[in-house]
């Protein structure tokens, strides 16, 4: 697929940066065409023409996307069309456990899988790849998550 990876994290040696690296490794081994938009490095608008999959790599803060990613989503929704996008993948980490996020309403998940999905291709599908409890989880759980990301991104349909 022709993939635009939208990456949002301010720190270059963060866990999210490691997730991006494994995500791109997976896309390469799956022979996908991909380019990265690093929102902290260059926030300019990207032409979405020809992009049929959007992959978002970000940390969940206050139950949603970081402000800079929220800004990109809202600006892009007002200036261009997501109608060609057939696959929306979110790869994210949460400080708190899954149950807490469910009680809090999973705002970020619904922004991508419902609000953005409504603006995408009518047959677009979504996928949620999330690590919970990152502040307290073991190193082993983190490395298993990285493997999961790489495996998922190497598949033909992401």
């Amino acid at each position, binding site marked *: 697929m022709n993939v635009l990876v939208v990456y949002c994290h*301010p720190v270059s040696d963060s866990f999210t940066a490691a997730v991006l690296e494994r995500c791109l490794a997976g896309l390469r081994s799956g022979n996908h065409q991909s380019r990265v938009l690093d929102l902290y490095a260059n926030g300019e608008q990207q032409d979405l023409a020809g992009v049929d999959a959007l992959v978002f790599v970000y940390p969940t803060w*206050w139950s949603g*996307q970081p*402000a800079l990613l*929220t*800004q990109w989503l809202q600006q892009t*929704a007002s200036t261009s069309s997501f109608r060609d996008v057939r696959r929306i993948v979110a790869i994210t980490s949460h*400080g708190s456990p899954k149950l807490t996020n469910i009680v*809090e309403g999973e*705002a970020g998940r619904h922004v991508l899988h419902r609000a953005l999905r409504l603006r995408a291709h009518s047959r677009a599908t979504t996928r949620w790849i999330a690590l919970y409890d990152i502040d307290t989880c073991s190193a082993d759980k983190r490395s298993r998550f990285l493997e999961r990301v790489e495996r998922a991104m190497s598949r033909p349909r992401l």
Partner: protein
Amino acid sequence: MRALILLAATEGNDLCGKAAERAATALRAKGHDVSLRDLVAEGFAVAMTAEEREAYHGDTPILDPLVAEHAALVGAAEILVFVYPTSLSTMPPILKGWLERVMVPGVGFVLDHRNKVQPGLGHVRRIVGISTYSEGRVEVKMTRDNGRRTITRALRLSCGLRTRTAWVPLYSVGAATAEQRAKFLERCARRTGR
């Protein structure tokens, strides 16, 4: 009581500006001490910087004097009011950035000895949200109204057990008549000024 009203609307969004003014007037009429802050006008920075992220779990997570000013207001507030236009089912980036940069450990929540999040806003008695929507009620509900969820559920969880929330929406704002707008402003005043 002390109230903090946060306005997050771009210049020219008269309705949100008026709604914030009406909320402030109603609270003052009840004898509350009101701070009304316009995030766009005061040039509040949207994104958390790398330096702020690295300081986040340290002893001094706040680096920007404007953020420190807002954190002091939050620390003293018993009523929090948010006024913004909803876009793509969520709050404006500047308000999301406000949550991320102001509601840091020690302000919005505290991390206990096991690194678990504990509420930090026990002093907040009431949260009011006021929002305009370009979509109608059905689409807003279908996409889950995520700005509202973040404020009335995620932020609410950082408050005490008895903190109440209220929400004042105006759906399909583009099609709203002058009368509907006036009624909306009335509701803003009535529901905030309790």
